[in-house]
């Protein structure tokens, strides 16, 4: 007689396996079970690994393409920079120096006003003088250097001064221009403006 431990076998499983339909379809059921088991435990992990690898390869291909593009761009950029005429580089550096270059600004303003009778009240707002960096590898920001000055002369001389300031070798932007007739019959020109420089 069967042990009570195996009672479930007799109650639930035995009727199933003795069922004639089950017995006649047994090979198909075995095949199906085998396919399910192999699919879950053998094929699925391998396929998943392959999919992961393919995804990883695609990601790496994208990274490589970006890096190749960047190195190509850098090479072209360096070549273009090297091919740039030194005179143009000097002009650009003079227009927008990498330090406040206050003396250079004063020289520019004085040169602009040489034709007029006199220059007075030249003011430059306080600015921190940074060291001249020999290795320009830091990131730059655009800074302003505010100035103002007065000059006196004839109208034509003063318009020439305005023109000269706007065409100075250093880039200068005028924010205010005042032409006023002084008591003695002369004209006073008051100019306020901004010079720019790049700060590391």
């Amino acid at each position, binding site marked *: 007689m069967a042990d009570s431990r195996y009672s479930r076998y007799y109650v639930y499983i035995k009727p199933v396996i003795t069922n004639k339909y089950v017995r006649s379809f047994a090979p198909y059921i075995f095949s199906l079970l*085998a396919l399910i088991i*192999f699919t879950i435990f053998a094929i699925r992990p*391998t396929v998943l690994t*392959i999919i992961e690898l393919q995804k990883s390869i695609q990601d790496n291909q994208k*990274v490589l393409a970006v890096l190749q593009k960047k190195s190509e761009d850098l*090479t072209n950029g360096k070549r273009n920079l090297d091919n740039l005429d030194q005179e143009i580089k000097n002009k650009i550096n003079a227009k927008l120096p990498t330090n406040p270059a206050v003396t250079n600004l004063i020289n520019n303003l004085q040169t602009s006003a040489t034709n007029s009778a006199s220059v007075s009240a030249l003011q430059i707002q306080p600015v921190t003088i940074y060291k001249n960096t020999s290795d320009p590898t830091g*990131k730059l920001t*655009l800074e302003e250097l505010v100035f103002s000055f007065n000059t006196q002369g004839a109208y034509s001389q003063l318009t020439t001064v305005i023109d000269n300031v706007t065409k100075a070798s250093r880039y200068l932007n005028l924010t205010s221009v005042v032409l*006023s007739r002084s008591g003695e019959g002369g004209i006073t020109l008051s100019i306020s403006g901004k010079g720019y420089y790049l700060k590391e």
Partner: protein
Amino acid sequence: MAASKIPTLFNVNLLIHRGEEEKLYAKLIKWALSSGRFIVIFVEIITISAFVYRYKLDGDLADLQDQIKTQAAYITNLKSDEQLIRNAQFQISSLSKLKSEKADFISPLESFNTIIPKSMRITNITFDRNLAYPKSSFSITGQSPSNLELSVFIKSLQQNHSFSDVNLTNISFETQTNFTITGNLTGAKSGIN
């Protein structure tokens, strides 16, 4: 001959042994040696193919990673050049931006020269760049011998498309007509509307 042509509806094999049915484990063994064998072989083929393909993919991935390392090292070497290029680009783009926003005060002065009546005395001209680009404000203070000349001057300013919002903000009458005119510079080249 005629009897042999009659179709048979059922084939009954009376010789089959109707004894005890085949055990399930025997069926399992039979299946394992027949269909099961092919299933196992099929699965093994798939698994081995995938394994080989995975080796190929691993190789490809390793090659790609080597190439990435090489490129990264090359780019790292060019870091100082990259910063130089970026700085030069920033310098040029800043200049370009500043130049595009530069206020032109010479053209309005030239326009004033042409439209201010000869008899009018200008005591002050002010240009101020406090407004948003490209507008700047201007102010003219002067004396006019007659209101007619002043109105002609204002009309000329209003018709010139270098100027906008032209207003007579102050007027007083003494021996001559003292006036102050304000307006904005449009940034456009001088010309008559």
